[in-house]
């Protein structure tokens, strides 16, 4: 198979950790308003972006995810006063680690998306799918 063909056939798998109070609802909003986005993303609900252990992200990549999104409330709006900031710090650390081991840090994305920003959620997924298609599969699966 030619490389071009493979890239075209490649459908990246994205895992999105969404916060119950904001981004999870934004995904709902995208659906309600029929703002389509690619089905490449699977959504996992947590109570706060701060719950997302770096371990989850690593396991996601090891299990075959090509990209991971962590989506939480806008700064100052975290219902638990700062879980989203903790998530931001962890993502910074993870990206450093990813660079060290040769994984493109752009495969991990942290976004602030409030409950009503359905269009934003769709946009983020759309963008990531596009970028990952160019990057190609991660292939870290054991």
């Amino acid at each position, binding site marked *: 198979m030619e490389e071009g063909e493979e890239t075209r056939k490649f459908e990246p798998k994205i895992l999105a950790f969404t916060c119950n109070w904001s981004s999870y609802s934004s995904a709902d*909003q995208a659906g309600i*308003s029929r703002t389509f986005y690619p089905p490449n993303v699977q959504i996992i609900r947590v109570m706060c972006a701060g719950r997302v252990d770096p371990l989850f992200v690593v396991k996601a990549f090891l299990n075959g995810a090509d990209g991971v999104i962590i989506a939480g409330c*806008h700064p*100052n709006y975290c219902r638990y006063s700062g879980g989203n900031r903790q998530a931001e710090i962890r993502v910074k650390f993870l990206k450093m680690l990813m660079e060290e081991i040769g994984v493109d840090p752009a495969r991990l994305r942290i976004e602030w998306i*409030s*409950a009503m*920003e359905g269009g934003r959620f769709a946009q983020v997924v759309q963008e990531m799918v596009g970028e990952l298609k160019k990057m190609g599969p991660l292939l870290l699966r054991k």
Partner: protein
Amino acid sequence: MIRLEKVSSVTVIGGGVAGIQAALELANLGMLVYLVEENPSIGGRIIELNCSSCRLEVPMDCSICPVIPKIVECYHHPNIKILTNAEIMGISGSAGNFQINVLKKPRFINEDKCTACGACTEKCPVEIFDAFNMVKGRKKAIHFPLPQAFPQVPVIDRENCLHFRSGTCEKCSEVCPTTAINFNDEDMIIGVKSEAIILATGLSLFDPSGIREYGYKRYKNVITILDLEQMTSIHGPTGGKIVRISDKKEPKSIAFIQCVGSRSRRTNNNFCSGVCCMYTAKDAALVKILKPETEVYVFYIDLRVFGKGYQELFNKVRNSLGVKYIRGRPGGIWEDPKTRDLIISFENTLTQRVEKLRVDMVVLSPALLPHPNNRKLAEFLGLELDEHGFFKSPNPVSQPFDTTIKGVFTCGYCRGPRGISESATQASAAAGRVTETITLAKMGRN
């Protein structure tokens, strides 16, 4: 501890932010609540707004995010009975024993059966003007109310629906997969008994076409700030882009004009609506964030930045984002017939110079008025209204949410201009006051 042996009931008139909050607090305090709303869904004005404040990263009144879960909670709360599409026909009795006659108009769609699939809206052959959606401008006679309304159940515009006009069409009901549509639904009169009433009728918008020199409804590119809010919603007809109505192009310059029809003896609305300075600042900021090259001007009289975080947000809007604030109420707006641009004539009162400004688009912040229904309710209850239509309190300092009648309380805009946060706080306060009053009355009896 006083126990309320028999469950007391309270009627909340108005299902906006204040009404919903009051209903929930009362319900959680053990009361039975009747929430009466004239529209087919609850949520009030707030669900017409666009969510954008948290993008600006300064804490300030945001619109929808906190309210939607409360709307859902209201629907599921065992102590709250919501009567939508409902009109108050009469109120008699007094504190401790009010009788309220509610006319519940039929929706013709069974909320229990409807699954919001939208097949009816697709099949409906009648298109009507959608004032809400001024860019696309059309919707069907059967249509969903706002996207943020809950439950998502369609409503029928009886005036334009063919079935109601000539009995010649039942396409929607034919295509409904759950037979949720029933044209034979009738008006229902419901008699509600309550020990207390909370009024939460909210606000209405001043129609700026009354200020002829601003050209609203004559010049296409003069819109109100509510129109802008809907346009910037990412679920709206332009996907969140701000465009001129005349040519659908993105404006390179926008001027906001505050206090349109308010603080003015000419319109008799000589009061300040309290919230416009900040929501104009918010929307001006949004314009800049969406498209930083846009020239943004705000015409103001006084900057009302009295709330928590307001001055800080305003500083950001003016200093960091570069929105230009001009102190002066424009004398008039003219339209360039070729380009449909607008030329604003004004005196910059801080430089004492009379100037002209050409912009692509003008956004008017109209006065926010009390709801016209207040007059009818005041009549039913024997309440006092002030000259503008706001409910009066016996003492605005020590009894901010009492009315001139015992057992009747107010919260939110219907008492006087206030924002979302204060309205919600007043709603909780009114709930506390009602509970206190009812408990004291019960003690009196015992």
